[in-house]
């Protein structure tokens, strides 16, 4: 039996005055009304009769007092919240990891609003069951971890921290939370372990790691649990219903930019066949619906055509109920509603501007002026001498160019835009990692949009090198000596570096081919990819989509001082633009279509969507990998069985008896 006081000491002092007051009231003589009667002879005999069993009579006399004191005592016991908990092997230190990701919104819990509330309830019960020697900390995690309360044995502070936690629309990443817990349970040594003079920063302390989640995260393999004893409490029912949109995008037809298409992917994650309608809304107006029936785990792709959509548009895909009698726009009712909506934006049509700085590169000229390329870009070619001229500086300042291609040359300072360097290193952060020599291509990263549709293994490179980029560099083509094509981020821009020349200059100054790539079909395709994805021509038609909680980075014209970003009809957030027109927007928790407006003119569009199969697959996982361990669901955690309700009911019954008895006495 354990007790939890509901009152602070001064409140208890006040409470203890109640029984004292009752007793004092009884000590005070009852103010009886005097009545003169002919003789007390018979009354005295009556009272004598009543006193026959004097002990019983005395109890009868004071029964009210006893009942009142007992009622107060029971109320006091109830205020101490008596409860019983079973035997639990506890490390004395608890780390609560509370999943606050979007999948915890699932409403498949009976009696609770959603999984998150169920998890909070279970944590609250475990906090109530904590013994005095136990300390606990609370970490909330979604796509990032937040320590809500560090180690404390103060249950009140833990409860407060628990009440502060809020559900998010974000995906799940447990690693940050594990690292936060790990830092406290497995403190790192200050230096080497063999050094006897070395003092450890802190003693490693074992702790129970209680993970309250539905398991909608990736297995964590590179994590050593060390002193942590993981315990996974799966939240959610085994047969949830959920149909979710896992992908949705809208893009203009390259051939007919006035027309657009929207693509959606819908998966039934439940265990039963689901029938529903998929409706497309453009700028809030219904455009088209399609009825769909999906078997469990079945996936379906839908394509909607949007003719004559030349202006910017916010496009929304909704799953709607097809049940008989349902209204046309009645949302589909499954256990997770956030993935029943998806948003995409179509930017107004525009072309990208490319500055080519070269001393002459015909293959490049040809590839940038194909019929397809001409539709998406305007190329201006300048000689190498152009770098450093006032006109060049002015161009950069105005932010006119979406991409600058430096062919065998480099600027003094990096321009505030995306760049493509051919056979040259952009900055000191880059370095050559091999000597020039014949290069054979080994691997191509086809998952990257720049590399799509490319088959490069037949090309020859006479002389090439390999490059090392700054941290975050992505290797797109790897040759026998190292990276041949690399993409690296730079302050919101991207730099693409090709490590070999297309056209090299012979000893006599004549142009010579260094590769046969430009003779290959893949050359214009690659440059078109560069225009679309590096220069932003693809972005120019399809508005970007971000995950909830992501930091949204956009570029607008640098002359604009500030922009207004709004979702739906909500009040806009005013965001100041950074250097060369970069805009960062962090309040991105709510899914939806967002409009970026400057001077009452639409500048850009973007959408926030929860496209995560892990979040949509809401059936709780039974096990997950954590380091070298497989953590199985513990089912339930041990909770405290509380008796205060019963004690309170007993107290009320006593009060009723006391009232009945009092009435009987004076009746």
């Amino acid at each position: 039996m354990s007790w939890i006081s509901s009152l602070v000491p001064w409140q208890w002092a006040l409470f203890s005055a109640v029984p004292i007051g009752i007793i004092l009231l009884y000590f005070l003589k009852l103010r009886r009304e005097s009545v003169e009667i002919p003789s007390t002879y018979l009354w005295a005999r009556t009272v004598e009769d009543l006193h026959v069993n004097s002990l019983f009579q005395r109890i009868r006399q004071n029964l009210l007092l006893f009942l009142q004191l007992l009622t107060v005592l029971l109320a006091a016991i109830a205020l101490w919240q008596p409860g019983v908990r079973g035997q639990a092997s506890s490390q004395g230190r608890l780390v609560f990891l509370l999943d606050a990701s979007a999948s915890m919104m699932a409403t498949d819990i009976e009696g609770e609003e959603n999984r998150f509330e169920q998890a909070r309830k279970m944590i609250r019960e475990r906090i109530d069951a904590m013994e005095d020697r136990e300390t606990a900390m609370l970490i909330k995690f979604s796509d990032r971890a937040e320590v809500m309360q560090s180690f404390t044995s103060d249950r009140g502070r833990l409860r407060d921290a628990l009440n502060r936690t809020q559900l998010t629309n974000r995906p799940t990443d447990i690693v940050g939370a594990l690292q936060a817990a790990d830092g406290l349970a497995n403190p790192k040594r200050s230096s080497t372990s063999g050094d006897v003079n070395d003092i450890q920063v802190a003693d490693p302390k074992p702790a129970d790691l209680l993970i309250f989640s539905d398991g909608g995260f990736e297995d964590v393999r590179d994590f050593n649990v060390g002193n942590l004893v993981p315990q996974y409490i799966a939240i959610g029912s085994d047969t949830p219903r959920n149909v979710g949109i896992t992908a949705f995008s809208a893009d203009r037809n390259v051939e007919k930019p006035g027309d657009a298409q929207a693509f959606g992917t819908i998966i039934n994650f439940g265990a039963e066949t689901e029938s529903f309608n998929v409706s497309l809304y453009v700028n809030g107006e219904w455009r088209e619906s399609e009825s769909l029936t999906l078997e469990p785990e079945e996936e379906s792709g839908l394509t909607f055509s949007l003719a004559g959509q030349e202006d910017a548009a916010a496009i929304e895909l909704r799953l709607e109920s097809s049940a008989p009698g349902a209204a046309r726009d009645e949302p589909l009712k499954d256990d997770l509603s956030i993935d029943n909506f998806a948003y995409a934006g179509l930017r107004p049509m525009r072309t990208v501007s490319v500055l080519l700085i070269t001393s002459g590169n015909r293959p490049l000229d040809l590839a940038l002026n194909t019929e397809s390329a001409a539709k998406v870009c305007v190329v201006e070619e300048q000689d190498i001498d152009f770098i450093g001229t006032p006109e060049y500086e002015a161009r950069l300042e105005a932010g006119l160019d979406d991409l600058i291609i430096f062919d065998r040359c480099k600027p003094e300072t990096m321009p505030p835009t995306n760049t493509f360097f051919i056979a040259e290193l952009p900055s000191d952060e880059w370095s050559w990692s091999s000597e020039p020599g014949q290069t054979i291509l080994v691997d191509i990263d086809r998952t990257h949009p720049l590399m799509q549709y490319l088959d490069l293994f037949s090309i020859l490179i006479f002389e090439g090198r390999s490059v090392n980029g700054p941290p975050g560099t992505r290797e797109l083509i790897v040759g026998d000596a190292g990276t041949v094509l690399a993409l690296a981020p730079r302050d919101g821009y991207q730099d693409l570096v090709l490590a070999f020349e297309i056209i090299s200059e012979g000893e006599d100054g004549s142009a010579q081919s260094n590769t046969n790539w430009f003779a290959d079909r893949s050359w214009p395709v690659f440059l078109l990819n560069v225009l679309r994805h590096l220069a932003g021509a693809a972005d120019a038609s399809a508005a970007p989509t971000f995950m909830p909680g992501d930091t949204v980075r956009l570029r607008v014209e640098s002359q604009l001082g500030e922009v207004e970003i709004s979702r739906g009809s909500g009040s806009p957030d005013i965001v100041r633009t950074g250097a060369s027109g970069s805009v960062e927007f962090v309040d991105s928790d709510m899914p939806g279509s967002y409009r970026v407006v400057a001077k009452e003119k639409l500048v850009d569009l973007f959408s926030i969507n929860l496209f995560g199969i892990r979040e949509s697959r809401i059936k709780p996982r039974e096990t997950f990998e954590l380091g070298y361990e497989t953590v199985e669901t513990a089912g339930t955690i041990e909770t405290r069985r509380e008796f205060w309700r019963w004690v309170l009911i007993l107290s009320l019954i006593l009060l009723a008896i006391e009232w009945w008895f009092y009435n009987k006495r004076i009746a």
Partner: protein
Amino acid sequence: MSTAESISLLSPDLLAKLERLELVSRKVFRGRMKGERRSKRKGQSVEFADFRNYVAGDDLRLIDWNLYARLDQLFLKLFQEEEDLHVYALIDTSESMNFGDPTKLHVAKQMAAALGYIGLCRADRVSVQAMGAEGRRAPVLRGRSGLWKMLDYLDSIKEGDNTSLYESVKDFSLRNSGTGVVVLITDLMDKGGYEAALRMLVGRRMDVYIMHVLSPEEIDPPIRGDRKLIDCEDGDETEITVNAYVLERYKQTLQNFLSSIKAFCSRRSIAYLPVRTDQPVDDVMTKYLRQRGVVR
């Protein structure tokens, strides 16, 4: 004395009814004067009583000559004597008698006056007395003309003599050595008990009647809740919480009390007559007491 009060004791109608009544004595007593009652004494009435042998000195007029002729012996023929009856009415004047509406004392006075008037009409020797010191100045009356004296005396009786029943009866017995009918009008609420007093009266060969006067307030008390009961005679206090249960107990106690009196009286040939103060005195005298054989 106020006439109004006297009249309130006995109404003219009641007086007329009372004149036709007669007190019944279950015993035959010797009287003091010639009266209308059969006496133990042999005397000169028309009713034959007995014969006895002649002894020298007897009145020759009483010799039954017919018997002498037949038996040749002298016998005297004896006749019943008719004498008066001693009727005492004792009124309890303790404080407790001053309760009720009308008060028990008032009802007791009415009863005493009525009984006294019946006695006066029948030429009995009537003495209506308050118990205690007041009783010493009570007149002994005979004849109808004594009514006004009796009423005067009754009017002068005030409550407040809290002498115990036993002491009062003892005082009465010492003052009145003769026998006769004693009507004790009291509420018997004496913490010293009533038994000794009654035993003394019976022991003096009195024909004892008890008129037990109770007010409705005593039979069904209108008291509820937490009360401090104060005895008006001795100031004794009893704190009590009166509820249905206690009231039930009280009524039970009262019934036990009445039954014990009744049993005590019947064992000693005492006529026990409970009277409620809310009963009209006419009904009590002309119906209730006739039914009980007290008057005829």
